[in-house]
C-alpha cells in the first residue's frame, strides 16, 4: 500500500467528496444530525474503489448508518448511497427500470478491471464538465411508479439490526443490548444483497413490488348507473376540501364534496357519471394529496340501510308527496327523467326509492367563478337567514350514502318530508337568492311550513 500513498489519489480513482448523496429515509427524522466523514474510509461495495465514508445516526431509535457505495456508482444509477434505492421514488432499481423501461444492464460493466476503468472514465468526464447523459429525473413518472412509491419517508429501515446472539439464545447483555431482540422474519425477502439491488437483477423486493403493482385492481364502475360518487378514505386534518376539489375537478364537473372528519373520509359527487368514471380510472391507487396517499373507491348507495329501517312506509311516504305535489312546478321545470318515471311505476328494485328525487341542481350549478367569496367578499353566515329552499339542494346528496353519518336527521317516518333537516352547506359557496319557483321539494307542508323549519 505504501506506493499508493506516494501517488496521486485522484489519479488512482480514489473518490473524495464533501457531502453524501442520500435519501430522506436514510437521513432520518431529526433535522439536526452529526455526521462523521472519513476520507477513503472503505471500498465501494460495487466498484471496490476507496471512497469517502460518511456516518451518522438518523434519529434516536436508529442505528448508525454509513454510506456503502461511492458517489460515482450512486450517480450512475441515481440511487441513495446507503440504501441503494432510487433517489426520487425510493424504489429498487429493478422496479424503476422496469416501470420506466430503461435498460441499464449493459451500460455498466461487471468484471473487475472493466468496472474500475468505467468508473474512472466516468469520473474524469464528470470532472471535465462533460456530465453524463442521465435521463433520471427528467422522465415523467409513470403510473406504476406512482402506485408503488412511498409518500413519506420510511424510518423503519433505520432500526437497529437484530441481535445475532439473541437468535442463538445467548445474548447476555439484556436491556443494555443495542440490537433488536426479535426473531428474524424468514421468507424470500430475507435473501437480498447489495449488488443485485444495484444492478437491478433478481431483487426479491423488486419482484414483490412488481407483483403488487400487477395485482392492484382497477376500480370497477358499479352497475348502478346512478352512482356518481367516489369515496375518498384516509384523509387527515391537513387536507382541506379545496385540496380535494383541486385534485378532482380536472376529471369532470363536481356536484359536491362532503368531508366526514370523524371517519377521515370524503365523498366526491360528480354531476355526470362519465366524470366519476374518468376520475376513478385515472386516480385509483395513485391519489396522493399533500404527500398523503388516499384510498379511492366508488360510493355505495344507502338503500340497504334505510330499507331495513323504514321499510315500506318510507317508500310510501316517498311516493306520496310526489303524487300530491303541485303540478305546475313540475311543468315549469321538468325533474330528472328518473323521478317522473319513478312516479308512475315505482320499480321495487330502485335503490333510491325512499330518497327524495335529486332536486334539479343542473339548473343552477355553481361554478367556482360564481362564488364571490373566492374573490374575497365577506359573506355573513347564512345559517339563520338563509332560505330552506336553497340549502336543501346542497344538503341533499349526503343522504344517498350510507357511510356518511348525516347531520342529526329527523326520524324517517310518515312525515319524512314534513320536517326535513337542511344542513347548511359546509363549504363557502354563496347561496343563491331564494327562488320560490325552484322550490322543487315535494312537500305536503302547507305554505306556512318553511317558517317552522327555519325556527
Amino acid at each position, binding site marked *: 500500500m505504501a506506493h499508493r500513498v506516494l501517488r496521486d489519489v485522484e489519479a488512482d480513482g480514489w473518490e473524495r467528496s464533501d457531502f453524501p448523496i442520500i435519501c430522506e429515509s436514510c437521513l432520518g427524522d431529526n433535522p439536526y444530525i*452529526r455526521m*462523521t466523514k472519513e476520507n477513503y474510509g472503505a471500498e465501494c461495495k460495487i466498484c471496490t474503489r476507496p471512497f469517502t465514508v460518511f456516518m451518522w445516526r438518523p434519529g*434516536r431509535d436508529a442505528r448508525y448508518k454509513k454510506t456503502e457505495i461511492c458517489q460515482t456508482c450512486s450517480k450512475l444509477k441515481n440511487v441513495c448511497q446507503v440504501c441503494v434505492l432510487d433517489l426520487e421514488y425510493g424504489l429498487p432499481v429493478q422496479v424503476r427500470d422496469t416501470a420506466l423501461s430503461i435498460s441499464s444492464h449493459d451500460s455498466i460493466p461487471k468484471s473487475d478491471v472493466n468496472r474500475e476503468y468505467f468508473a474512472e472514465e466516468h469520473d474524469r468526464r464528470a470532472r471535465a464538465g462533460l456530465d453524463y447523459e442521465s435521463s433520471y429525473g427528467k422522465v415523467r413518472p409513470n403510473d406504476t411508479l406512482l402506485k408503488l412509491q412511498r409518500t413519506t419517508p420510511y424510518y423503519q429501515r433505520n432500526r437497529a439490526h437484530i441481535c445475532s446472539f439473541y437468535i442463538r439464545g445467548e445474548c447476555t447483555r*439484556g436491556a*443494555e443490548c443495542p440490537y433488536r431482540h426479535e426473531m428474524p422474519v424468514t421468507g424470500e425477502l430475507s435473501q437480498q444483497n447489495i449488488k443485485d439491488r444495484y444492478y437491478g437483477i433478481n431483487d426479491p423486493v423488486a419482484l414483490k413490488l412488481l407483483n403488487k403493482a400487477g395485482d392492484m385492481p382497477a376500480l370497477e364502475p358499479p352497475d348502478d348507473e346512478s352512482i356518481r360518487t367516489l369515496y375518498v378514505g384516509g384523509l387527515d386534518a391537513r387536507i382541506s376540501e379545496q385540496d380535494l376539489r383541486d385534485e378532482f375537478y380536472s376529471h369532470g364537473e363536481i356536484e359536491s364534496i362532503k368531508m366526514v372528519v370523524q371517519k377521515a373520509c370524503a365523498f366526491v359527487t360528480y354531476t355526470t357519471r362519465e366524470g366519476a368514471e374518468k376520475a376513478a380510472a385515472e386516480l385509483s391507487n395513485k391519489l396522493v394529496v399533500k404527500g398523503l396517499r388516499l384510498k379511492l373507491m366508488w360510493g355505495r348507495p344507502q338503500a340497504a340501510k334505510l330499507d331495513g329501517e323504514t321499510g315500506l312506509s318510507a317508500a310510501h311516504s316517498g311516493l306520496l308527496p310526489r303524487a300530491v305535489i303541485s303540478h305546475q312546478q313540475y311543468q315549469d321545470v321538468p325533474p330528472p327523467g328518473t323521478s317522473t318515471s319513478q312516479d308512475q311505476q315505482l320499480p321495487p328494485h330502485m335503490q333510491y326509492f325512499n330518497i327524495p328525487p335529486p332536486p334539479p341542481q343542473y339548473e343552477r350549478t355553481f361554478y367556482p367563478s360564481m362564488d364571490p367569496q373566492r374573490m374575497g367578499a365577506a359573506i355573513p353566515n347564512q345559517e339563520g337567514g338563509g332560505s330552506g329552499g336553497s340549502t336543501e339542494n346542497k344538503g341533499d346528496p349526503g343522504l344517498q350514502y350510507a357511510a356518511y353519518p348525516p347531520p342529526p336527521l329527523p326520524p324517517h317516518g310518515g312525515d319524512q318530508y314534513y320536517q326535513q333537516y337542511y344542513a347548511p352547506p359546509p363549504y363557502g359557496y354563496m347561496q343563491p337568492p331564494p327562488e320560490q319557483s325552484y322550490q322543487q321539494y315535494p312537500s305536503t307542508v302547507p305554505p306556512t311550513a318553511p317558517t317552522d323549519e327555519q325556527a
Partner: protein
Amino acid sequence: MPKVKTNRVKYPEGWELIEPTLRELQGKMREAENDPHDGKRKCEALWPIFKIAHQKSRYIYDLYYRRKEISKELFEFCLDQGYADRNIIAKWKKPGYERLCCLRCIQPRDHNFQTTCVCRVPKHLREEKVIECVHCGCKGCASGD
C-alpha cells in the same frame, strides 16, 4: 560481605490498618489481569481492570478526604507507591467530577464530536436509560445521578 538493602521501604504510621484491604484489592487485580477474555467483546476486556483501579483509588481518597482517618504522610505514600491514581483523585476534588469513573471518559479528544463519554450525561438527559460506556463499562457517573 553482607548485602546492603537499598530498596527498603519505610512504611508510614497507620499502614498496617489499610494494608489488608489494599492487598485484597491487589489480589483481585491480579486475578482480573489473568482472567481469560473469551466470549467478551473487544471493549469489555479492560473493564474489570478499570473497575478495580477505580476501587483502590476511591478507597484511599475516601480515607483521606472524607473520613480523614489517614495522615497526609500515608496518603502521599500511597500515591507515590502507586496504590492510588493521583490524577483521578485530583478530578474527584472538583465539583461535577465527584463520581468520575475514569479519565478516558472525560477526554474530549478521544471522542468523535469532541464531547465526553455517554456515562457523563445525567440520567434524566439521556435517551437510553441503560448504558455501559465503551471505555470502562461505567453505567453513569454524572454527579447528580
